[in-house]
Each structure stands twice: as structure tokens, then as C-alpha cells.
């Protein structure tokens, strides 16, 4: 009985470590087997005690628009490593639903508006007509270092920097954030200057 109890306690104590390890393994596997696309973003920086500083962002898609209405998929036609990817929203049905010519497809939820959306408070300039959040990054939050959060917020409000995210997209079309850049540089390199 005591031996069984000891085994149970060891298993229960190993469980948290095993799950944390599995989370790391799953994230690494997802990134290693994903295709990467760069997308421009815009946002502002509130504070969160639990998860640290994060940036609330919206995507600024480099999109070819061919219809107006809801969309659940984006066709990525070109994804260069050092520039924003070119995308085309796919319609639910009809000619605009075809994935011909797509390097890969991103699943998610969004809409193609008839005209550009007005800027939110804290944003500079109108956003594009394509409003789309890929599955896996729906919250639109990016964790940023506390040390540079204030400066980053000031730069964003001044509109003097361009932020981009490298999205790792799995074969199922789910996205996760692989890296993010300020004017094409990683955050430590940018602020080191």
C-alpha cells in the first residue's frame, strides 16, 4: 500500500514538470515545422500584472482585395523573409474561394470592409480594408520587455517606427508568433543602438 502511495505521489509531483516540458516541446515542434510570414502591425501598450507588459495590436495586411464580406481564410501568395507577406482574402465560396497560386493558407476570422476602418484612439492613420485575426493569435497580444515598454509606447504613438511580426503557420493553418521586430531589427538590437 505504501509503495503504491509513494508511486502516486511521485507521479503527481512529476506531472507539473512533464506538462511544462510538453508545452515547450509542442511550441518548439510547431515553430520547427511551420512556414513563416512577416506581417506589419500597429498597437498600444497597456500593463498587465500577471503576464507583464504586452502590446495590443492589429494587423496591417498587405492585401489584394477582390471582394467585400466575411472571410475565414487568407491565401499567402508571397512570403519574403525580410518584408511583409502579400495576402489575398478567400471568400466562403465562388471564384474568390480558390486556393490556386497560394504558397500556403492561414485560417482565422475576419472581414473585408467596403472602405478603410477609422483609426482607434492611439493609432495613427486609417487601417486597411482587410480586418483579419489568424487562428492561434486571436487575442492580438504581444509580450514586450518591461524595460522598453514605455519607450516603445512613445515611439508607437509618435508613429516613427514600424512593427512587424513573424508568424509561424502550421500545415493546419494555425498561427503563432515566432518573432517580432522594430524597423526590421529585434528588440534588443533596436534599443542597443
Amino acid at each position, binding site marked *: 500500500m505504501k509503495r503504491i502511495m*509513494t508511486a*502516486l*505521489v*511521485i507521479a503527481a509531483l512529476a506531472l*507539473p514538470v512533464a506538462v511544462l516540458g510538453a508545452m515547450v516541446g509542442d511550441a518548439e515542434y510547431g515553430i520547427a515545422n511551420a512556414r513563416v510570414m512577416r506581417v506589419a502591425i500597429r498597437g498600444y501598450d497597456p500593463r498587465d500584472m500577471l*503576464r507583464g507588459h504586452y502590446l495590443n495590436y492589429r494587423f496591417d495586411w498587405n492585401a489584394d482585395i477582390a471582394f467585400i464580406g466575411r472571410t475565414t481564410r487568407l491565401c499567402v501568395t508571397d512570403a519574403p523573409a525580410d518584408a511583409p507577406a502579400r495576402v489575398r482574402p478567400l471568400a466562403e465560396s465562388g471564384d474568390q474561394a480558390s486556393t490556386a497560386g497560394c504558397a500556403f493558407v492561414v485560417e482565422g476570422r475576419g472581414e473585408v470592409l467596403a472602405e478603410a476602418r477609422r483609426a482607434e484612439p492611439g493609432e495613427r492613420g486609417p487601417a486597411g480594408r482587410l480586418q483579419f485575426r489568424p487562428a492561434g*493569435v486571436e487575442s492580438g497580444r504581444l509580450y*514586450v520587455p518591461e524595460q522598453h515598454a514605455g519607450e516603445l509606447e512613445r515611439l508607437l504613438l509618435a508613429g516613427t517606427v514600424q512593427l512587424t511580426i513573424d508568424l509561424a503557420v502550421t500545415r493546419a493553418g494555425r498561427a*503563432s508568433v515566432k518573432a517580432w521586430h522594430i524597423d526590421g531589427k529585434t528588440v534588443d538590437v533596436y534599443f542597443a543602438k
Partner: protein
Amino acid sequence: MFANRYLARWQGAGLIDAAATQRIADWERAQARPVWLWALAGLGAFAVGMGLLAVVAANWEVIPGWLKITVDLALNIAAAAALFVAWQRGWEKTREILAIVLSGLVLSGIALISQVYQLDGPAWQALLLWMAICTPFLALVTRSRVLGVAWAAVATITYLTAIEALDRALGRLLHGDAIIMMVWVPGLLLMVVGIARGWLATTRSQANAIVACAVLALLFAASAPQFIVFRPREEAGTMVAIIMSLLVAALLLREARRDDVSATALMVIVLAGLATWLATMMIWKLAGANGATFWNRRSTDGLPYLSAALVFIAFWGVVSWLALRAGRRALFVLAFAVITIRVFVIYWEAFGGLLNTGLGLIGGGLLCLAFAALGWHIARRAGRPMEAAI
């Protein structure tokens, strides 16, 4: 402290002699638990956990992500190993404190991995994962009341953060409102956890703490229909809540037959709480009351609100009676205060004008006096001097 006060009183009245006083005082001293030391130790362990979270939240980019995760996993392994040693050697205090530290480390690990890999998702998912992986070792290793209360508090916080998602899911599943399920049933589930935890003699003290939390949750939940004018279109949620309540009552009946003295009182709270929900919902339905909450009610007829208030007062009257029987002074005072406040609120919400309000206040005062007379009568018949009982 309380024992000393009563001992001096009883010795002064000649009920016990000096030797008996000394024996009782010695026994009480031996049984005493250093609550403030436990509180301080718990606070320290909690502060360590929060500190680790804050360090993670700082997202210090000088340290690479892989190194931060490696250090965090190593700390988790070290804490788990230390906890295992403390459990094997029976170091009670060290074991309980290490369990709090390990729980904090696990939460900080989830936050760190989410941050390094920019993982997306609502907070409740992270909290639910945390509970799912910490509950097994907490259940197997810990025994203290402090950790029982802490677990119940974390379960409540996790539930509250997930309530919107749960509302949507239940709405789809039951094709209608499910407020009774979302407010009443979680307290029942917490009570079942507490009862099941008490089946082992070694964890009975912790189980009692969880059951106490469940009772508080049920008292709050039974009061909720006063604040939410709830008229469901479909009754599926109500049926599920009734079935769950009856199952828990049956479980408590079984416990009462196994000589659990508090089980009968718990069963009364469960059944009275369910009756309060059903009676209030029926009143709202029959009266065609509108307005979603207590604050924006619209009605020219005060009768449904008066009826609902009387149901509420009857429920808290049952609670105060149970508290009196069990000698739970704090609960009795709480129940009495709740009834008093509710009596006065009736006149604010159900009547209007100075004459009516004045008459209402006189009626309310007479009602309180009648309650007091009834209470004294019950206490006398029960053969319990009230001052001693509470």
C-alpha cells in the same frame, strides 16, 4: 484566549474548581494552532510565488528564453523533490509551505512559457491548466486547512474568469439561460469535493475547510435570485440544478447516517437554497417581472418583490437557526445582519411615499421584534441558553 475568559467565568460561578481550570487550560494550550504563524508562512510562500511571476512578467530580454525556461523547470524539479522528501519524513509545516511554493512555481512556469513562445489564449485556460496539474499533488500530499481554503479560492477565481465562456457554452448546449446552473451548481460541486476529501481521516480537517467554503458559496448563490430577475425560456438548466441538488442531498443523507453530525445541517442548507431559487423564479415568472437586475427593476406592483424578499428572509432565517443550533456565532450574526438589512430594503423597493415608508418601517420593526421573541422561545424550548450557544 476565549477558553481562558470562559474558564475564569465558570470558576467565579463555582462551576469548576481551580484544578479543573488548570487542566482545561493546559489541554487547550496543547491543542492550540499558531494561526498567525501559519498566516505569516503562507503569506511568505505566496509572496515568493508572486515575486517569481513579477520577475517573469518583466520579460527580461537579456536572458535568452531557453535559459529562463531551463532555470524555471530546474526550480520546479527541485521544489518537487524537496516536497517529496518533506512528505516522506512527515515534516508537516515544511510540506505544506513547499506545496504552496511549488504551486507558485508551476504558475510562473506556465506564464513564462506563454511569454517566451507568445502563446495565445484567455487567462482561464492557463488557470484551469494550473489547477489540473497541481490538484493531484495537493490532494495526495497536503493536509492543512490553509491549503484547503487556498485551493477552494483558486477554484473560485478560475471559475469566475471562465464564466463568460461557460455561459456561451451552456447557452448553446441548453438553448437558453443557465444562470441557476452557473450560480448554484458550482457551490454544490465544491461541497461534493469537500465531502469526498473527508472520507480519509487524515484529510478531514482540510475537508472541513473546503466544505465551509462551499457553504459560503451556497449562501451567496441562494441569495443571487434577489439580485437577478431570472425567467428562463427553457427549463433544462433548472432541471439539471434540481437533480444535482437532490444528488448532493442524498450524499449528505448517507454522510448523516455515518454519524457525520454536520451533514444534516448541510442537507438543510442545500434543500433550502434550492427551494429559495425555485420559489423566487416562480415569483418572477408569475408576476411577469422585468428588469434584468436588482437595480433596474420596473414594476408598479410591489407584491412580487415583497414575496421574493420574504422567501429570502425565510432562507436566511433557516441559516440563522442552523447557526444557532451549531453554536456558530459568526454565522448567526451574519445571518441576522442579512435579514435585518433585507427587511429595510423591502420598504425602499416595494413601497413609496413618506406615509407608506413610515408604516412599512413600523411593520419591519414589529417583524424584527416578532423574530426576536420567536428566537428566544425556540432557544428556551431547545433548552439552550442563547448567550452560551452563540
